[in-house]
């Protein structure tokens, strides 16, 4: 069991923009500790000098010609928005009012 503090879980959750209720945070402290302890298994392996594998295919950047082509119409792009004025996505206030 790895020592994971409740504050660690809350810190990481905040990075991920998640707010955990008390029960969920308590449960995650235990589960994360157990899972991360299991992952320490990888320390048995010497990976000195092994290049990290980022991707299953060793692909490099794929370029396309720089030509305009039809893209999603504005109406279609906005059709699932929780709030829109027909031209833009609307969100709640970002800066507090004086």
């Amino acid at each position, binding site marked *: 069991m790895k020592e994971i503090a409740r504050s*660690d*879980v809350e810190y*990481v*959750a905040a*990075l*991920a*923009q*998640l*707010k*955990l209720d008390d029960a*969920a945070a308590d449960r*995650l402290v235990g*589960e*994360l500790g*157990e*899972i*991360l302890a*299991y*992952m320490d*298994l*990888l*320390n*048995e*392996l010497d*990976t000195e000098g*092994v*290049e*990290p*594998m*980022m*991707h*299953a*295919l060793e*692909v490099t950047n*794929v370029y*396309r010609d720089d030509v305009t082509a039809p893209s*999603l119409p504005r109406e*279609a*792009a906005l*059709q*699932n*928005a*929780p*709030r829109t004025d027909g031209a833009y*996505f609307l*969100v*709640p*206030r*970002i800066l*507090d009012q004086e």
Partner: protein
Amino acid sequence: MSRDWFGCTAHEISDALRSGAVTAREVAQSCLDRIDAVDGRVQAYVEVWRDEALRQADAADARIQAGTAGPLTGVPVSLKDVLCTQTGATTCCSRILEGYRSPFDATVVRRLQEAGAVFLGKVNMDEFAMGSTTENSARQVTRNPWDLERVPGGSSGGSAASVAADETAISIGSDTGGSIRQPAAFCGCVGMKPTYGRVSRYGLVAFASSLDQIGPLAKDVRDCATTLNVICGRDPHDSTSADVPVPDFTEALTGDVGDLRIGLPRECFTEDLSDVVRGPVIQAARTLEDRGATLVDVDLPLLRYAVATYYIICTAEASANLARFDGVRYGYRDPDAKNVQDMYVLSKSRGFGPEVQRRIVLGTYVLSSGYYDAYYLKAQRVRRLIRDDYARAFASCDAILMPVTPSPAYRLGEMLDDPLQMYLADIYTIGVNLAGLPAISVPCGKSSAGLPIGMQLVGKAFDEATILRAAHAYELHAGIALGRPALAG
């Protein structure tokens, strides 16, 4: 001639359509009636497209009349709810995408449509494809058609259950760490994960982008090969789709395995494997040997590190991919949010289910400052070693035969409270995703309790043809008749 068309394979349906024995409308209606009869118990479908299916069936009949039909024209297909479709909703069985209507079709959906397939609807899955039981769906709990008190597996559990319960001929699923092969094994159908890059993922809602791949679940190997012929190939909309020629996979189905060397990894047949799975899998290898294949021992010494490697990489990628669900452009926006920060936090916290939140937190942890090198970078290094492991094994064999799962299907609820235990059961399927290889799960027997058991054939990158050939030869000669699930009360 009257037949239960809903129980037929795609090639049986296709032959009957072309001979005029049945119309595509009759086949579609037969499947819709079957869904009405059994889906109340199986609960595979989250959405049934009655009108759309019959419309597509009529179009298929017109093509058959005109002589322009292909092998999938008029064939019923169900789609995992992770695939974007302009018809119906695309929710990934998550509350956060409730009611989302995609403005475009996934490339696989478009290709199947162009081939004349008839879509019956969307099927259930673990939320965002995260899980091994389909119990993490925000929609409903899908049952295993062979035993309604057991799970169908996951995350493509709705796909596997819909095929096994004869509610469709073919289903399209996705496989990040076994999500096609494991439910196929649990439900007694054939499931295939193609090579990474074989199938365009444009319109597949991303879970872990370096691992995700789309593939078919079907009643037999031939139907998998036929489906691959339609869905594989380069797509300019997905820069990770490979520009590699796509052969006619059905030409590989010769029944002959005389020239094949089949590798059995020693590490897969240890005491961790239950006898109930070991017996049929070993028997499957013997069947191929009887047909002339050579069995060779191979080693995958890093097998025991695969689960840890996989769950670091997939959660890291998931935490990045799922950051897009912020309540701005689509999806759930919490009505209590007073400012923009609240909107992000409340929408995610109330929109994502527990397993998805667990993986986002874990993924954020392994990517966070101070832990990135120790977990994420380490896992990426081990990933390369795992890939090299497979490459070494393939130096002495053409395909690797191994189990799909350590045990048959779990009881409902059995895995819910122990995530690590659930992750560990992915041991035989995830190495293939880490290495980017193709693999197929084929039924090879039943437990004494009547639960299906699968065996897995793994191939070299872009060599789907060889494992399809071996799987087909096995199916042809094994004499395994699983029968059909009784689906009693």
